[in-house]
């Protein structure tokens, strides 16, 4: 009986399907592998708002937060939902880092890459009360310090930790990394002088920068950021020098993208690629990028897959060097 209904529906849809592309038939869930209020959550909700405001999808968009186990829970959920075209997941580098660090049996290769929306920058921040003016000052102080200087960031064996350890190894200094429950606490701890530096994303630190509690030393990117509008009285994001230009040869950027579960049809994938391309062109999205100093970098299809393959290789190398790969 059920099968018959399905066949009937499929038959009825067939001519339509060939004329038009696939369209969602029920509410779309966007799974966010982070708690409400975090930067991935903000991205998802900005996308949700942009889609609703500009009427890009007829079906409602639902956001589901699954922050447990550094996003592992969310990835397992997507893996189990193979073939479901009404589920999406926001991703960051965690999509390769969490499985590598915890031996979780998931891989992005089982998912369907939809689109990369942007890349997030990382910046070396220090407390304003400290005398360091350049990354070199900081590293010199780190060389001389005993006990070692402290950096802090979100979690262990994640992006912030990786940058901190890579910085240590590149500059040949000893730094203690203190993991916190998120970028927010790490930002507060820096403002309170409990740690000496952090490597937060621009969005996580902009409030304290503007208030004068912290200052940026350098950005871990190959070239300066593009946003030239003044953020503080005398500086814009573009005024932050890159770390390589300061003699600290570490660059790291994090993708922000969208995936679907595996085993979806090419039409379904194409629908979402098209949708996110439209989202990326909305003024809401552009305002979001500027506010968070994200690098606009829309990629889809093979370009995205190539990026992922290369990025995963890079992470594996960095994480192996840092000793983050799960062994047991």
């Amino acid at each position, binding site marked *: 009986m*059920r099968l018959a*209904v399905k066949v009937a529906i499929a038959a009825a849809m067939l001519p339509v399907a060939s004329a038009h592309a696939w369209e969602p*038939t*029920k*509410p779309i*869930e966007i799974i966010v592998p982070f708690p409400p209020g975090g930067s991935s959550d903000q991205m998802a909700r900005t996308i949700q708002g942009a889609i609703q405001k500009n009427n890009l999808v007829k079906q*409602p968009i*639902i956001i*589901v937060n699954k922050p447990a186990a550094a996003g592992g829970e969310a990835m397992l959920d997507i893996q189990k939902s193979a073939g479901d075209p009404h589920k999406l997941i926001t991703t960051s580098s965690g999509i390769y880092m969490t499985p590598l660090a915890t031996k979780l049996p998931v891989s992005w290769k089982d998912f369907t890459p939809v689109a990369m929306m942007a890349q997030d920058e990382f910046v070396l921040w220090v407390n304003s009360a400290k005398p360091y003016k350049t990354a070199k000052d900081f590293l010199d102080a780190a060389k001389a310090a005993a006990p070692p200087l402290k950096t802090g960031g979100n979690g262990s064996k994640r992006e912030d930790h990786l940058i901190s350890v890579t910085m240590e190894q590149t500059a040949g200094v000893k730094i203690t990394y203190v993991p916190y429950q998120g970028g927010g606490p790490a930002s507060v701890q820096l403002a309170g002088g409990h740690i000496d530096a952090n490597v937060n994303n621009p969005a996580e630190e902009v409030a304290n920068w503007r208030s004068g509690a912290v200052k940026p030393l350098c950005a871990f990117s190959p070239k300066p950021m593009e946003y030239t509008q003044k953020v503080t009285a005398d500086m814009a994001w573009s005024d932050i020098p890159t770390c390589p230009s300061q003699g600290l040869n570490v660059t790291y950027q994090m993708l922000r993208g969208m995936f679907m579960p595996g085993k979806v049809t090419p039409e379904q994938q194409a629908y979402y690629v098209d949708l996110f391309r439209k989202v990326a062109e909305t003024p809401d999205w552009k305002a979001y990028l500027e506010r968070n100093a994200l690098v606009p970098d829309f990629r889809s299809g093979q370009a995205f897959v190539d990026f992922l393959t290369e990025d995963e290789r890079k992470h594996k190398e960095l994480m192996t060097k840092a000793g983050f790969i799960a062994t*047991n």
Partner: protein
Amino acid sequence: MADVSHPADDSPPASERGISRRLVETLVSLLLLGVSALALWDSYGRGAGWDNGPENGFFPARVAWILAIAAVATLWSALRREESVFVTYGQLRLVAQVFVPLFLYVLAIAFVGIYVASALFLVLFMVMLGSFRWWQTVLAAVLTPLIIFWVFELQFRVPLPKGPIEAMLGY
């Protein structure tokens, strides 16, 4: 209004037979010992020492030792306690009347989704334990899932577990 039923075994005499409390106390103590053994095994396997600050098994291991000691203490006092009744068979039957439908309900959620399961659960529960008129039961069983659907799926946009019937209706 449906009257609350008063089964004969509502308030059993103190002398009524039931499960021994000493037995349950002992079982719980042994279970807690088992939990602590598991935690100790896991913690020492990952390192429970002190390496410039505690390793990640340090606290669970210490806590598990404490749990083990407490469990031994409760086991000791359980074995020495006077015999009394943990739950009488009459009470146990009543508890089972709630627990078994509840268990079936949770089981059913996996197959038919939470809405259908809730309706079935309400019917089962109300028929077994209440003395409602049939239309009251049907009304409650139909209305509750509908209200839940309206509140969670439509208003708050929180997706709950759904089964094949919802899928056929396009959700």
